[in-house]
């Protein structure tokens, strides 16, 4: 029985539990003498309580135990593959092949004596059924794959049996507990509360998971490359070693990448902040409601454009345009390269304008109307009011908004991949190509790679560094924004 069917059955039990429990509660309600006893919850809540009790534990058990089971099986495959192939790097390839073989066996319905004796035989049978397998499988894998399949089937049976049992038990328990004074309403409330808490922790737990997985690989990287060389090295030259030759050849200096990242972010902010702020001031203070209701969504539409589109625009249109323009200005010598810090910064700035203006607009409109009125009533003009009262009052919030924007600029990938170039060098000329951390992560991870050499592992170190930088900025931005909020409440 597949997990999908099981879930459907559990839900079916839940629905039955709902109707019977609601029915029973209704019957009790009709019989009770209301002068003596007041029913606590509506039949609806008794029904919901039974539904939740008969479905939630069963489904949770199903998911959790399935995860445990697949972990156990993975461990078994690794252990046995390890006894055949001592080299861990090669073993991880074999593990993948064993997985595929097991899956092919399962799909062909081959168990016990039906399992072919050689890998080649399995591969032929599989390809006849339209399943393709790798060439490099070995015969020892077959009994292992078959054994794994059997173990998995046993696990599945146990788990599904347990889930069904839990579901029925939950339904019966909830049904039997129905009393006039049972606080089913409060119980449902509590379950709702816990599910809400669960939903809100998903993102947080995922973030923790991301950090942990990156941290593991980063530590792996630093065991091969000295952290000092990484953080303070000024040369980025991660020569790809031939597969298997190993060794940490190449230099992994973060500085040129960090400099490029910050430089491009700076150029984009220099462009986006004044434009975005002025747009926000116009929308918040001058625009009539009709214009505002048209312009603001239009501007926010810009934020919805995929950044790769901006990148294409930069590389196809704006980059050549700036190059030709500079050639025309300087009499033939194009001092702006087609891929440059300048081009990437401007295009990223365009992308950031709606972010700046939308966040700042929220902050500006949050300044109480009384401030505006107070200033206008003293005979100040609108722009005096904005400069002397509104912007100072909104400043902390605007700074917070700008920090959030800056962390977007630093983490931005697709625009710089296309528009900034890949040359990792230190330069102060904004018209030359530089590269960023994100570009190098993409470079190092593009292709079919095993994560076992410093050349690929460096991507995790870079990613974690980027994560720490943007996280720090976001935390600081939130701190500032929150501090500002307290002022008017």
């Amino acid at each position, binding site marked *: 029985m597949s997990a999908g069917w099981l879930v459907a059955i559990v839900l079916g039990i839940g629905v039955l539990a709902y109707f019977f429990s609601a029915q029973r509660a209704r019957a009790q309600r009709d019989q009770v003498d209301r002068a003596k006893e007041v029913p606590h919850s509506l039949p609806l809540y008794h029904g919901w309580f039974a539904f939740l009790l008969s479905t939630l534990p069963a489904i949770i058990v199903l998911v959790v135990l399935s995860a445990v089971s697949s972990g156990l099986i993975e461990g078994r495959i690794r252990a046995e593959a390890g006894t055949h192939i001592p080299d861990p790097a090669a073993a991880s390839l074999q593990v993948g092949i064993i997985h595929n073989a097991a899956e092919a066996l399962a799909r062909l319905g081959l168990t016990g004596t039906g399992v072919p004796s050689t890998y080649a035989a399995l591969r032929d049978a599989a390809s006849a059924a339209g399943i393709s397998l790798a060439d490099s499988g070995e015969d020892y894998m077959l009994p292992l794959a078959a054994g794994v399949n059997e173990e998995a089937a046993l696990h599945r049976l146990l788990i599904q049996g347990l889930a069904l049992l839990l579901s029925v038990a939950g339904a019966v328990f909830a049904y039997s507990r129905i009393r006039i004074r049972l606080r089913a309403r409060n119980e449902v409330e509590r379950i709702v509360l816990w599910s809400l808490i669960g939903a809100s922790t998903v993102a947080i737990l995922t973030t923790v998971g991301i950090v942990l997985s990156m941290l593991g690989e980063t530590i792996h990287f630093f065991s091969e490359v000295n952290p000092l060389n990484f953080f303070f090295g000024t040369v980025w030259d991660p020569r790809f070693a031939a597969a298997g030759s190993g060794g940490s050849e190449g230099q992994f200096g973060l500085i040129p990448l960090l400099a490029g990242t910050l430089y491009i972010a700076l150029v984009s902010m220099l462009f986006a902040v004044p434009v975005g702020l002025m747009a926000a001031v116009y929308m918040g203070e001058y625009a*009539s*409601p009709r214009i505002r209701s048209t312009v603001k969504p239009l501007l926010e539409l810009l934020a919805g454009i995929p950044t790769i589109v901006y990148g294409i625009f930069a590389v196809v249109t704006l980059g050549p345009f700036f190059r030709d323009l500079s050639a025309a200005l300087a009499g033939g010598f194009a001092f702006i390269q087609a891929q440059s810090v300048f081009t990437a910064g401007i295009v990223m700035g365009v992308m950031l304008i709606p972010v700046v203006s939308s966040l700042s607009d929220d902050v500006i409109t949050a300044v*109480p109307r*009384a*401030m*505006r*009125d*107070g*200033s*206008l*009533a*003293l*005979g*100040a*003009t609108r722009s*005096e009011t904005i400069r*002397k*009262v509104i912007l*100072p*009052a909104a400043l902390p919030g605007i700074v917070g908004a700008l920090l959030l924007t800056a962390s977007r600029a630093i983490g931005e990938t697709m625009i710089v991949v296309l528009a900034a170039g890949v040359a990792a060098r230190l330069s102060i000329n904004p018209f030359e190509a530089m590269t960023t951390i994100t570009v190098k992560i993409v470079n190092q991870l593009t292709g079919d790679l095993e994560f076992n050499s410093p050349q690929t592992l460096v991507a995790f170190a870079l990613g974690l560094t980027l994560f720490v930088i943007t996280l720090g900025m976001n935390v600081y931005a939130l701190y500032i924004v929150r501090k500002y909020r307290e*002022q008017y409440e």
Partner: protein
Amino acid sequence: MTTEAFATGPAAAPTPNAPPKMQGEKVCVFYGDKQALFDVDLKIEPFSVTSLIGPSGCGKSTFLRSLNRMNDTIDGCRVAGRISLDDDDIYDPSIDVVELRARVGMVFQKPNPFPKSIYENVAYGPRIHGIARNKADMDEIVHSSLRRAGLWNEVKDRLTEPGTGLSGGQQQRLCIARAIATRPEVLLMDEPCSALDPIATAVIEELIDELRENFTIVIVTHSMQQAARVSQKTAFFHLGKLIEEGRTEDIFTNPRNKQTQDYITGRIG
């Protein structure tokens, strides 16, 4: 700009025959399609306190705000009829609204000090209008405005602290100091005491009575006692119409109109 208002302070009692400082003739105000004021005719006597009373939504605040064109900041608001300041139509296209508001200052219902220091709050208007010639001049304006607003003794040692840190009553007096630092001729007050406790209210009422020496004051209030205590003239609004106006003691002791009588005795509103 009447700089002599500060220096000499013509404390002349309102004479019945003096020309009105401000005058509304057939004033109608619309918010979009909705008419909020209907043909209001009202004279504001110079150097006296005029109070506007009436139940909520009767248009008294609307009338007050149209006296310095603060209604302009509300979308869809339109004013018809004529409102004049010293016989100049303030809605005439030749009038600079910024200058008008410097001459007709306003204090709001809720104290709204800027998130700046006490000193900067008061110096805001003079700075914008270039009233002070130098730092000493500005100090003098700030100090005398705070003194006139009865706040000097409480804040003289902490002029650099934020104005938002004061108590509600102090904030409102700071706003009054801020308004008079610009040296307006008319001071509009929109329920200036409604957010304050009785003690702070008493302080402000006393202040209003003193300010009458130098300024023409129009005050909107919900408190009949306050109107009776501080004003020389009272106008009663109801449903967007001016029902009755006259000397305060006449309105309160001997109202001609039945509606006025009902309101001041607490039967409507």
